[in-house]
């Protein structure tokens, strides 16, 4: 007895022989169906009305991410132009805000510069301390040897 298992989904139905269930076959069908899923919205004709691709994408799990990727890819050639226009628009509409943004950017540059300098200083200091420690370890070792030698003398 063949049966269409999930009517709710518009994808290829999973066919199951209930008298002789074959799990391997069901899993193959599920895997095929999932593998086909990402191509469906891209290959689908421009949707109209209720069955729009937006609705389909909203209903399926990985659809949202795919839609975002497609939109991003389509918009990529126009992005520099859009950014330039946005920049010009801000300058024209609100020069004060534009000036403030520029000032903030300069401050950020200075801040990063100072941070780099401080980190470099710390690193140098760290290296110097490590060297000092090594010297002190050697001194300590030498003093230990001297102590043992003196002890020997005292015993003798």
């Amino acid at each position, binding site marked *: 007895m063949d*049966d269409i*298992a*999930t009517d*709710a*989904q518009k994808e290829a139905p*999973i066919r*199951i022989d*209930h*008298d002789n*269930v*074959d*799990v*391997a076959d*069901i*899993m193959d069908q*599920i*895997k095929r*169906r*999932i593998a086909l*899923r990402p191509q469906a919205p891209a290959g689908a004709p421009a949707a109209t009305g209720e069955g729009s691709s937006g609705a389909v994408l909203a209903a399926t*799990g*990985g659809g949202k991410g795919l839609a975002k990727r497609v939109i991003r890819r389509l918009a990529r050639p126009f992005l520099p132009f859009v950014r330039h226009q946005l920049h010009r628009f801000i300058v024209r509409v609100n020069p004060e805000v534009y000036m403030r943004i520029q000032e903030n950017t300069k401050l950020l540059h200075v801040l990063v510069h100072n941070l780099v300098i401080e980190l470099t200083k710390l690193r140098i200091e760290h290296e110097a301390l490590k060297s000092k420690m090594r010297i002190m370890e050697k001194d300590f070792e030498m003093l230990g040897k001297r102590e043992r030698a003196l002890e020997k003398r005292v015993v003798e």
Partner: protein
Amino acid sequence: MKLAFVVQRYGTEINGGAELHCRWIAEHMRKYSDVEVLTTRALDYITWKNHYPRRKGIVNGVPVRRFSVTRTRRPERFGRLQRFILENEHRVEDELRWIEEEGPCAPSLVRYVRRHAADYDHFIFFSYRYYHSFFGVRTVPEKSILVPTAERDAVIHLKIFKDLFNMPRAFVYNSVEERRMIEGLSRNGHIPGDVVGVGTEVPPFSSGERFRGRHGIDGDYILYIGRIDENKGCHQLFEHFLRFKTETGSPVKLVLIGTTVLKIPSHPDLVPLGFLPEEDKFDALEGTRLLVMPSFHESLSMVTLEAWAMRKPVLANARCEVLKGQCLRSNGGLLYDNYDEFRECLELLLGSETLCRAVGGNGRKYYDAHYTWENIENKYLALIRRLEGT
């Protein structure tokens, strides 16, 4: 014929894993031979602290001889050592240190096995990765039958186990996958063995309605039984289930039975009930649409067999080789490898009562063919006869 069952813990309080497996086998084999259990005094599997009295006792008609654990396990130290061994080049001595830390360290048990080897015909050791099996099998290799209950986890690759798997007189495996894994790792195909597993005690009557009434559960639910632990794949199960609920708006609930080690997300449709008695467990199985098994590592999964005994389908993690093999061989469960498959399978099973009945029925047929007590007992007897004949 006298058989000694050697296991890390033993008692009616221990409700799962190799210990329950051993108890059931010992109780059933009592019909055919003298049986005695050699075990430790431990109850807690984390520290192996002595809990039971030292004297010889009887548990469900089976004589039990208990030996003291001389060193409790310190989980942090053990964890550090295990990490070191798994992540670094190391010597065999380190692995030996690991097995002593793993415990339960009971030298008196091993001494007893050595001194009384002549009193028993066979020693059946459960769980390869513990002290009692590691040293016990070495003490009486010619009389030992090892039930490894092995999962595909990292420690099975340790060098010391390669030798161990070549020592016993025979093996009793839980699944075809376990046998394949151990034979592949240690090239011990020449040692006799059989895939046996364990049966289960299904109560004559169970009622889903009684379970719903007792725990206030209405509507459809799916069931997880076992320790609620990250190692058992529960974290991933919660993620998948809650995402499934959000995306599909399904009213189904996930009922969880077992002790909790992991923090369970707070959601009205996640229903943790803690540890429940056997009767409740089977009532829950009777009322559920399906059993979900998210574990990545299993050597047999007794609850899967119980679900099949109750004619319930299983939705199992395909990354667990044993569960995958069992589901494909029995056609008694669907498998998921990722969320998309989880969603598809769950929708399929929740959407079709007929499919649930068919898949659950297949599970029952598989259970009847391989896991009834008569089958299990006969397989043990056949193996022992084979050893005695050679």
